[in-house]
C-alpha cells in the first residue's frame, strides 16, 4: 500500500513562529519630541577676538590631523605661531574645562600646530573667492595691516601693503622681544601671507596726502599704522638725556642697537610694553625697576608676563607716580609721589589718590617711559565726530562716496590693544569692506551680524565664505550643559620653560616646544563644547538603533522612521552637540 505523504502542509500552516523582522513597524510615529544634531558655539571661540574655531581645532588635533587643525586656525587668523606665543588667550579664561579641573592650554596647542606646520613646510589649502577687480592699499605691515590684506586676499581683492621700515611685522618685528617671539616664526607667517597674494612694499613711508592720491589707484585704504610712540610723562626733566620712549628702545633692540645698557633702569608704566622693556633690560645685564601708579593686579600687562618678569628678577614698585626727573652726575634721580588706593571701580581696578605729601626718590641711570601709546604722526589718527563713520567693534569705516573708503584698524581703533584684536580688526575691516563694495555702507552692520560667533563681537571668515561653520547655532555652551560623566580629572599640560638663570642671560625663547603626544593629550582634555567629535555615544546608547552611520557631514544621522524621541542621545552627548525639540504634528 503506498505511503501517504507527510501531513505537514495541512496541519502545520499556522504555527507560532516569527520569521520577519520588526522593521515594518515604523515606531517613529510614536514621537512627540525630536532629536537632531545641532552644533553650537564653544565659549572659547566666542571669547577669541579672532573668532577661531578652537573646539574644532582641538578635535582635529586629537585625531592627529594637524594640517587640517592648522588650516582651521588659518581660516580665522593668519598668525597662529605668533598668537600661540604672545596672545593673552581670553579663550582660556572662558574655557569650560576650567570649571572642571584646569582650562585647556589652547595657546600651547595653537603654537604646536603652527610650529609643526612650519617645520614640515606645509602649505595650506584654504577657500577663497574669485578675483575681484578692486584693489586695496594697506598702510602698515603690522598684525592689523597684514591681517586685513590676508583676509582681503581670501575675499579676492588685490592688496598692496606699504611698510615704512625695512621689514614687515610691525610690533611683532619691532616691538615684542625675541624671547617672546622668535624671528623665524614671524617670518614664516609673513611669507604665508605673501603666498596668499599680498604684495608688501617695505621702506615706503607714506605722507598725509596719500589718501587723496589713492583715488583712481585704490578703491579703499586700510590704516593700520599702529602705535609707535609712548605718551609723555608730563613732568619736568623728561627731556633730559637718558629719559627715553620705551617703545623706541624696543625698536632699537630689535634692530640690534642698544646692546649696551647701564644699570639700574626705571621703567614707567604698567602695560605689556613696560614689562617688555624691563625684561629686555634685565637680559642686557641691568637691574630693572618697573614704577607703576597702581597695584600689581591693576597692571594692564598680561598677568603671565608680569609673573615671568618678577621671576626673572625685575623689581616692581607699586603706587608711585613720577613727579620730576633730575640729573645728578651720571645718575638720574626720579622723584615720585606716593599714592594710595581709595577704592575700586566697577571692574575691580584700584582708584588711587596722592598719599598725603609723601614722596620718594629712585636713583637710576636710565628711565624709559612706557605709558599712553599713540601713533607716530597725527595724520594717522582716526577722525573724531564724523557722522558718516561706521564704528565697528575693532575698526572704523569712513565711506567717502566716490572716493576710496578709508578704514582705521589695529591699535588705532581696537577695543583692546593686542595682537589678536589687531587680527580681528583686519578681518572685520575686510568683511565690512567687501559688504560695502557690494551692497553699500548701510548694509554693513546688519550683514556682519550673521557672521558673529556666539552672538558677537568676534567674526568668522569661514562662515562668511559659507563654510560648515555657518550652520552652527550661536548658543554658547555653558558648563552645566556638559555631561561630566564622561570626563576624568586630568592635569593640564605643563609648558616646559627655560630655567630662570638661562632666561636672565639670553633672548632665547622662554617657552619651549611640546611634543605631539603632549599636544594630543591636552587636546583630548578639551570638552569640544557644542561640536560633534564622533564619540558615537548617540549611536551606541540608542535603544532603537535609530542612529545610523553614513558619510554625511556628521558621519551619522538619525533614522526618523524609528526614532521614538526618548532623548537619551541628547543627554548622553557629552558636549551638547544635539538638540531636542517638539515634534511638529
Amino acid at each position, binding site marked *: 500500500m503506498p505511503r*501517504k505523504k507527510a501531513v*505537514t502542509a*495541512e*496541519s*502545520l500552516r*499556522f*504555527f*507560532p*513562529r516569527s*520569521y520577519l523582522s520588526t522593521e515594518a513597524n515604523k515606531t517613529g510615529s510614536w514621537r512627540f519630541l525630536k532629536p537632531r544634531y545641532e552644533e553650537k558655539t564653544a565659549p572659547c571661540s566666542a571669547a577669541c577676538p579672532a573668532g577661531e574655531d578652537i573646539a574644532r581645532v582641538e578635535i582635529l588635533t586629537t585625531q592627529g590631523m594637524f594640517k587640517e587643525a592648522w588650516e582651521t586656525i588659518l581660516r580665522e587668523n593668519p598668525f597662529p605661531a605668533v598668537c600661540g606665543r604672545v596672545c593673552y588667550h581670553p579663550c582660556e579664561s572662558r574655557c569650560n574645562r576650567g570649571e572642571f579641573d584646569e582650562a585647556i592650554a589652547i595657546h600651547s596647542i595653537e603654537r604646536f600646530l603652527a610650529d609643526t606646520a612650519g617645520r614640515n613646510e606645509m602649505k595650506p589649502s584654504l577657500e577663497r573667492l574669485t578675483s575681484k577687480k578692486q584693489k586695496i592699499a594697506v598702510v602698515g605691515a603690522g598684525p592689523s595691516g597684514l591681517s586685513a590684506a590676508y583676509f582681503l586676499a581670501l575675499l579676492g581683492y588685490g592688496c598692496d601693503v606699504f611698510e615704512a621700515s625695512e621689514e614687515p611685522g610691525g610690533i611683532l618685528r619691532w616691538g615684542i622681544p625675541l624671547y617672546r617671539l622668535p624671528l623665524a616664526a614671524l617670518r614664516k607667517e609673513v611669507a604665508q601671507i605673501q603666498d596668499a597674494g599680498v604684495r608688501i612694499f617695505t621702506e615706503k613711508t607714506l605722507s598725509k596726502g596719500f589718501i587723496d592720491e589713492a583715488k583712481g589707484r585704490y578703491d579703499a585704504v586700510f590704516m593700520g599704522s599702529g602705535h609707535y610712540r609712548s605718551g609723555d610723562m608730563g613732568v619736568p626733566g623728561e627731556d633730559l638725556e637718558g629719559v627715553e620712549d620705551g617703545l623706541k628702545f624696543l625698536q632699537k633692540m630689535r634692530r640690534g642697537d642698544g646692546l649696551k645698557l647701564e644699570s639700574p633702569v626705571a621703567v614707567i608704566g604698567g602695560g605689556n610694553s613696560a614689562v617688555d622693556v624691563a625684561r629686555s633690560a634685565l637680559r642686557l645685564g641691568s637691574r630693572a625697576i618697573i614704577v607703576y601708579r597702581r597695584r600689581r593686579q591693576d597692571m594692564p600687562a598680561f598677568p603671565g608676563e608680569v609673573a615671568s618678569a618678577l621671576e626673572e628678577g625685575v623689581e616692581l614698585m607699586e603706587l608711585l607716580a613720577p613727579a620730576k626727573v633730575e640729573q645728578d652726575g651720571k645718575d638720574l634721580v626720579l622723584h615720585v609721589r606716593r599714592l594710595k588706593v581709595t577704592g575700586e571701580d566697577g571692574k575691580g581696578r584700584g582708584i588711587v589718590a596722592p598719599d598725603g605729601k609723601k614722596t620718594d626718590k629712585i636713583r637710576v641711570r636710565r628711565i624709559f617711559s612706557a605709558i599712553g601709546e599713540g601713533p607716530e604722526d597725527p595724520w594717522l589718527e582716526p577722525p573724531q565726530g564724523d557722522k558718516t563713520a561706521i564704528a565697528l567693534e575693532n575698526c572704523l569705516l569712513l565711506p567717502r562716496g566716490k572716493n576710496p573708503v578709508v578704514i582705521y584698524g589695529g591699535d588705532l581703533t581696537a577695543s583692546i590693544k593686542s595682537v589678536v584684536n589687531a587680527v580681528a580688526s583686519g578681518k572685520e575691516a575686510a568683511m565690512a569692506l567687501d559688504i560695502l563694495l557690494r551692497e553699500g555702507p548701510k548694509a554693513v552692520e546688519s550683514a556682519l551680524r550673521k557672521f558673529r560667533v556666539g552672538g558677537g563681537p568676534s567674526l568668522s571668515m569661514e562662515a562668511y565664505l559659507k563654510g560648515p561653520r555657518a550652520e552652527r547655532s550661536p548658543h554658547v555652551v555653558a558648563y552645566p550643559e556638559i555631561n561630566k560623566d564622561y570626563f576624568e580629572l586630568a592635569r593640564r599640560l605643563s609648558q616646559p620653560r627655560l630655567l630662570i638663570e638661562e632666561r636672565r642671560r639670553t633672548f632665547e625663547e622662554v617657552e619651549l616646544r611640546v611634543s605631539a603626544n603632549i599636544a594630543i593629550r591636552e587636546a583630548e582634555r578639551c570638552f569640544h563644547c557644542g561640536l560633534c567629535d564622533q564619540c558615537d555615544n548617540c549611536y551606541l546608547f540608542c535603544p532603537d538603533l535609530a542612529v545610523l552611520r553614513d558619510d554625511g557631514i556628521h558621519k551619522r544621522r538619525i533614522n526618523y522612521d524609528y526614532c521614538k524621541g526618548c532623548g537619551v542621545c541628547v543627554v548622553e552627548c557629552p558636549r551638547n552637540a544635539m538638540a531636542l525639540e517638539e515634534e511638529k504634528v
Partner: protein
Amino acid sequence: MKKVLEGSQAVAEAVRLAGVGVISAYPITPQTHIVEELSRYCADGTMNAKFLRVESEHSAMAALIGSASSGIRTFTATSGQGLALMHELLHWASGARLPIVMAEVNRALAPGWNIWVDQTDSLAQRDTGWIQLYCENSQETLDTTLMAYRLAELVNLPVMVVLDAFFLSHTYEPVDVPDQKKVDRFLPSYVPKFQADTKNPCAFGPLVAPDNYMEMRYDIARAMDDALERFPEVEDEYARLFGRRYGAMEPVMCRDADIILLTSGTVTSTTRLVVKDLRKKGEKVGVLKMRLLRPFPVVELREVLKGAKKVAVIDRNFSFGASGIFAQEVRAALCNLPKHPAVFGYVAGIGGRDVTPALIEEVYWKTRKNKLPEKESVWMGLKEVSDAARRQ
C-alpha cells in the same frame, strides 16, 4: 527477543530502541523504575543520550521543550503530582507542536498521599492537546511507546503513553523486545520539521494576537484529526514488522452483545475473564477496551456500540461535579446518534482500590437489571460509614 519485564522496564527498552537523544525526568513513585533504568542505560553506554537530572517535573517538561525545539528526539516519564505540576507546559508542548513522548503512570492525586492507580491524573490533562494511549500490559506498553514516536513525528503533536501504577509499572510479564535493526526500519532517525538554527534564525512562540491565534489552534485540531486518520496506517506498519497491533479500541465479543462493558487499563484484563464467565452462563455480554482517548475515535466507537442495548462504563477516575470521564466521552460520542445504547456510568478502583471480578460482575448485573441508569455515576464498593464514626 523474549524477556520478563516490568512495565517500567518495557518503557525503558522502547526508549532505548527509539534512539532517544535527550531524557529529562524527575523521580516520583511509581515512575521511578523507568528513570532509574534509563539513567543506567545512559551511564553505561547502552544508550547514547543525555540524561538531565532536573529539579522538578515542570523543569523536566521545560527542558524537553528546549531539546525538541532544537531538533532531537526526547522522552520523559512522570505520574500523579508530577503530571499535575507539568500541566502548564503540557499545553505548551502541544501548542509548540513538539513531538515529545511521555510515559505517564496513572497515580492518585493528593491530598491524602496515595501512590496507587487512579486515572484522574492523566484524564485531567485530556484538554492539553496531547495524544493519549492507555495500555493494558507490558508488551502493549513497549509497542505503544515505539508507535508513539512514529505518530508524534508524523503529525507534530506530543504523545502520552499511559500505564497503571504498580499493576502495570511494577508487574513482571513476558515481553518480546524487538530487534534494533527492525525498529530502525519502523522508526528511522528523527528529521525535525523545524528547529532553532543559527543559520536560519526565527523566533518560536512569540506574542500572537487574536488575528492569528485561532488559526494556530485550529491547526492543532486538524493535527488531531490527522492523527486519528493516520493511526491505522502506523499500526499496519508495526504489525507488518512485528506482528502485533492493538487498534484505537479492542472490542471483545461485542458484535452480538446486549450489554457492553467499557474499560481501560489493567481493569480490562480482569473484565475479559468476567465476560468469558458470563458468556458461559449465557449472558450476551462483551467488553470494549478503550486504548486511544485523544483523539477520541468517535466514528469507530459509534460503530462498535450501535448494536448494543446498554453500555456500562467502568471509570477508575472522576471529574468532580460531573461524572466518570470515559463515561462522559462515550455519552458525548453517542448523543447525536438517533438510536444509541443507554450509557451506565460506574466509578470503581479509585486510589488503587481493587477492582475484583465480583465487582465487575456486580456492575453487569446492576446494568442488566435497570432499564435506565439510576444515577449518572454509581460509585462501586464504597464502605458503609456508621453515623457514630461520622460524628467523630
